[in-house]
């Protein structure tokens, strides 16, 4: 950012006991978390898990049935010039198609008494300087996404909230977003960014909030999430499957026969498996270790929480 | 294009789209509700007024029956012949209203009648058959008020003959008294053995629009009189003295429905001249076998002053607007959300998609219109009866009367055509606000503007815009022999009810064709 302040005094997002139902469907169910300044917090969960609803509640667009969502200790709706505290991109297509990108940013700037030059700065930043005078209706999804990000950064906010920012972006755009997220956090801003794909976040997020069916499933760092996943598995190729199982089960590890020649054991490191089998006199033709990826850890966490196998990440119940 | 889904599938998918949006369903259901509520409001706030007469014809319909009649009884079969030597209409239009120039225009609305009458007594509304000369309309054989058979295009002088054979009355016309042409034969049921026959003259009131204030209109009426000269009236068989050309045995009466209306309140004494009943005509004058007769009044069916079915269905406007909004959104919302790409990807025949949409919204509107119309009429009839709308001025009706069925089905058809028009316009403009506003203004504004424009311009404005469709709601019959001014203010757009529907149908077809052409050409 052109005029990024040096380390800012941090403004956190604090969500406590949030509940929201749309008709009879709970969208958010007793959600509590904190988004710390200076970090990129990834907000992941399957489609319909309640990510967008949570973000809408933080921004005061939807009212929670219970609980609070505070930005810097205050409800969003009490902020005098909110764009200077919080910049958000919720729905990139929610722009009047007949207005030019520049005019869209200009009215936003006026509403929060933001100096006019910021409009050109953020247009530049988002790589839209050359199309600023074109009507948004003709923009591709990626360009709208960039416009939404430019709008979010207009007020040089201490808190940034992006809902699925990489949707529709090309590879270059995705890399741009990743760099942007890191640099925003590096400035000391609190960055909350959602995705339904863990892979989009694993390289850029410092912290992860995993949500499924409106409930918080994990509030953890990326490294811990991988570690707490059900663990590494070791596959043993052997003709003596029953003996192998008995031996390994004796060490307290869950085992399973996965095919004619393979026994899978989880929770034990490879070295220990080899040691146990050798000592137990079980012959084997091969041992292969399988490290759980973040993606698998996430899939396991959210296995029961997948509401829609496919479809739009719309707000549930609408 | 292989594996193209059947059109039935397409219809089904569009139907699902329409019914699965909750607020559209609500709006669609609001359409009949609004229609019924507005109909009830109209019924509850309607008053029949006090008609000047309540004379009913043989079939129970409201009629005018006033003429000057020189007559004598005829028992059994027989015939009456007369020569009409001349017939002259007298009509004065005040200079203020346009004078002589306007008089010619008014004359065209006057069916002055000079001829022979055979009537079941002198009671107004009684059965009759009559052969007559009507200036501008030739020889006519009219009977029981609504019957009208056109004969040769002759005028005075001419010979006329009326022959009774049982219940059959035949009429003849001749230019010389020897070679006769049959005008026609009518059967008058329940005719007693003895009837009154003789020459008659009737001369109705002419009408014209003379004044149009901004937003209001005055229909001016001009009483006329007709002076006719008859020669050599001859009755066969001869009954009593002087049945040939002499005054003996002929009686001179004016049949006058206005005079005999039972305790009719009568217009106030200070009523305008055209509302006051004309006093009777001078008595018939005989000069030898020449009879000079001056007549006022008319023998004709009278339309009900208010078209109760059409008025009850006025709420269709409110319902129509709801349907228009949904029809427009049904297509524009797809453009707005980019869903049209999904739709077109799912069924690449874009024109077919649009036609499927049109079929679905049209059918929906039609069904809603049927329900709305039928329910409205079922509910308003008892209210109107309670408010004193009664026969003969307001004939009772049921839903199964052909004209009422036509009004209900026609209303539904107008709703369907308008919905299709709205949908097509939505596809052309791709903007909900613009399309809804355009369609609604086309429906509503002509009504308001018509009164503001000069008479003919206003009439054509309504005739050529969608509101013309509502002329299918007309149920008061119109008769050629009882001309009425057809003005938007009278609720009259076209004399033919379905003609108006044709207008809106053209709008629907043309806009659909344009929309199909455009969606094929344009990028989605």
């Amino acid at each position, binding site marked *: 950012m052109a005029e990024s302040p040096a380390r800012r005094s941090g403004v956190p997002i604090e969500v406590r006991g949030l509940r929201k139902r749309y008709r009879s469907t709970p969208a958010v169910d007793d959600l509590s978390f904190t988004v710390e300044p200076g970090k990129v917090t990834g907000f992941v969960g399957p489609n319909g898990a309640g990510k967008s609803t949570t973000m809408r509640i933080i*921004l005061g*667009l939807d*009212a929670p049935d219970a609980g609070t969502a505070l930005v810097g200790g205050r409800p*969003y*709706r*009490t*902020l*005098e*010039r*909110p*764009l200077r505290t*919080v910049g*958000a991109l*919720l729905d990139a297509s*929610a*722009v*009047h198609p*007949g*207005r030019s990108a520049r*005019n869209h940013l*200009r009215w*936003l700037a*006026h*509403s*929060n*008494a933001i100096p006019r030059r910021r409009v050109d700065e953020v247009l530049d930043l988002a790589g839209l300087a050359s199309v600023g005078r074109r009507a948004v209706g003709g923009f591709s999804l990626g360009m709208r996404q960039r416009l939404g990000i430019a709008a979010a950064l207009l007020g040089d906010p201490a808190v940034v909230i992006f809902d699925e920012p990489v949707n529709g972006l090309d590879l270059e755009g995705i890399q741009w977003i990743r760099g942007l997220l890191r640099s925003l956090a590096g400035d000391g801003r609190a960055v909350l960014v959602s995705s339904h794909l863990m892979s989009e976040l694993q390289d850029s997020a410092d912290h992860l909030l995993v949500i499924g069916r409106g409930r918080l499933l994990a509030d953890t760092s990326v490294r811990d999430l991988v570690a707490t996943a059900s663990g590494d598995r070791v596959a043993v190729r052997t003709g003596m499957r029953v003996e192998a199982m008995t031996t390994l089960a004796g060490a307290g590890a869950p085992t399973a026969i996965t095919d004619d020649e393979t026994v899978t054991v989880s929770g034990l490191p490879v070295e220990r498996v080899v040691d146990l089998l050798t000592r137990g006199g079980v012959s084997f033709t091969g041992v292969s270790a399988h490290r759980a990826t973040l993606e698998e850890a996430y899939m396991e966490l959210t296995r029961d929480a997948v509401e829609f196998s496919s479809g739009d990440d719309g707000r549930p119940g609408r | 294009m292989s594996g193209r889904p059947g059109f039935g599938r397409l219809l089904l998918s569009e139907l699902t789209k329409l019914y699965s949006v909750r607020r559209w369903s609500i709006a669609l259901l609001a359409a009949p509700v*609004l229609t019924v509520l*507005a109909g009830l*409001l*109209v019924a*509850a*706030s*309607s*008053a029949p*007024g006090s008609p000047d007469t309540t004379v009913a014809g043989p079939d129970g319909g409201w009629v005018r029956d006033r003429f000057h009649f020189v007559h004598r009884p005829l028992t059994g079969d027989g015939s009456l012949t007369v020569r009409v030597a001349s017939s002259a209409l007298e009509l004065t239009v005040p*200079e*203020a209203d346009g004078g002589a120039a306007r008089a010619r225009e008014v004359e065209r609305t006057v069916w002055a009648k000079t001829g022979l009458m055979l009537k079941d007594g002198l009671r107004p509304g009684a059965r009759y058959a009559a052969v007559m000369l009507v200036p501008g309309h030739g020889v006519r054989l009219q009977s029981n008020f609504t019957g009208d058979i056109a004969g040769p295009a002759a005028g005075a002088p001419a010979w006329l003959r009326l022959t009774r054979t049982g219940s059959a009355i035949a009429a003849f016309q001749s230019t010389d008294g020897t070679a006769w042409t049959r005008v026609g034969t009518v059967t008058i049921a329940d005719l007693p053995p003895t009837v009154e026959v003789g020459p008659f003259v009737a001369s109705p009131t002419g009408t014209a629009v003379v004044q149009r*204030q*901004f937003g209001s209109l005055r229909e001016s009426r001009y009483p006329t009189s007709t002076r006719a000269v008859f020669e050599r009236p001859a009755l066969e068989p001869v009954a009593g003295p002087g049945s040939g050309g002499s005054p003996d045995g002929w009686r001179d009466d004016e049949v006058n429905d206005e005079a005999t209306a039972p305790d009719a309140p009568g217009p106030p004494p200070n009523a305008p001249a055209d509302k006051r009943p004309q006093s009777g005509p001078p008595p018939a004058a005989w000069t030898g076998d020449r009879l000079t007769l001056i007549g006022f009044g008319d023998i004709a069916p009278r339309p009900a002053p208010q078209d109760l079915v059409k008025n009850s269905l*006025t709420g269709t406007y409110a319902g129509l*607007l709801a349907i228009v*909004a949904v029809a427009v*959104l049904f297509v*524009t919302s797809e453009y*707005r959300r980019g869903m049209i790409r999904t739709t077109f990807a799912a069924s690449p025949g874009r024109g077919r998609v649009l036609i499927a949409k049109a079929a679905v919204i049209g059918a929906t509107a039609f069904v809603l219109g049927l329900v709305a119309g039928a329910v409205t009429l079922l509910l308003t009839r008892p209210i109107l009866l309670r408010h004193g709308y009664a026969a003969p001025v307001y004939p009772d009706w049921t839903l199964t009367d052909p004209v009422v069925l036509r009004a209900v089905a026609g209303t539904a058809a107008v709703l369907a055509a308008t919905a299709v028009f709205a949908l097509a316009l939505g596809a052309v403009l791709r903007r*909900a*606000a*613009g*399309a*809804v*506003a355009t369609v609604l*203004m086309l429906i*509503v504004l002509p*009504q*308001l503007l018509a009164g*503001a*424009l*000069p008479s003919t311009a206003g009439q054509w404005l309504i005739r050529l815009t969608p509101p013309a469709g509502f002329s299918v709601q007309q149920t008061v019959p119109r008769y050629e022999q009882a001309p009425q001014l057809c003005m938007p*203010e009278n*609720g009259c757009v076209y004399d033919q009810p379905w003609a108006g529907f044709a207008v809106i149908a053209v709008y629907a077809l043309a806009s659909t064709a344009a929309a199909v052409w455009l969606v094929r050409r344009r990028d989605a």
Partner: protein
Amino acid sequence: MSTVHAIHAEWTKLRTVASTPWLLLAAVAVTVGISAAATAAAGSRACPDPAACLDDLARLGLTGAQYGQALVVVLAVLVIGEEYGTRSIGVSLAAVPGRWRLYLAKAVVLTGVVAAAGSLGVIGSLLAARHFLPGTALGAANPGQSLSPTAEPVLRAAYGTVLYLALVALLSYGVAAVLRDTAGAIATMLVLLYVAPILTSVVTDPRWLRRIDRIAPMSAGLKIQATTALDSLTSSPWQGLGVLGLWAAGALLAGLLALQFRDA
């Protein structure tokens, strides 16, 4: 202070979509055009019977407002309906989270542009009336009626018409805020304004005619245009405009409540 910024933002928003200038231009053109057509047609009338030509010349000259208001309705509905249509209401509320403030800002800007366009329409209409009516038979039949907008009661009819258009705009705006749908709100407003006159054309009971005339927003509000025969009105000009004011206030309040308490 923030309200001023919100108003500034709404003004920018309104003037940066192409539909706004077109709608305003069309509103002025329709108002002036139809008023001029009406006065020109009336002015060409022969009046052999002066009694039949008694008319309210100022009201006649302002006829176009009845039609120009349709475009005002569309503009007013778009001001908030398009926010829901494009879902940009979320962006607007994120920028101005005080909902009454956003609502007020939009109302202020809307009222301003409608009043400006309405004034142009009224001035143009009265100029047309002054061009077409004096010296005609109709003018002679209605002596003593001035068309000068500087004196009562024509002055009242003139600025009353501007107020009328502004109130129609606010009524439409409130309805759109409740319905959150452009097409639905336009349809509702046009029914509300124009169906009453169609109904009264078939209603025959004079008590009901009076009732509808006093309550229907258009017929009540347009009483402000009356300059003669005031005692023949079913309610006084200001009472009539007041009725429209109540309609607008009710709709505005309902819209505010919907905005305040429903999720965006």
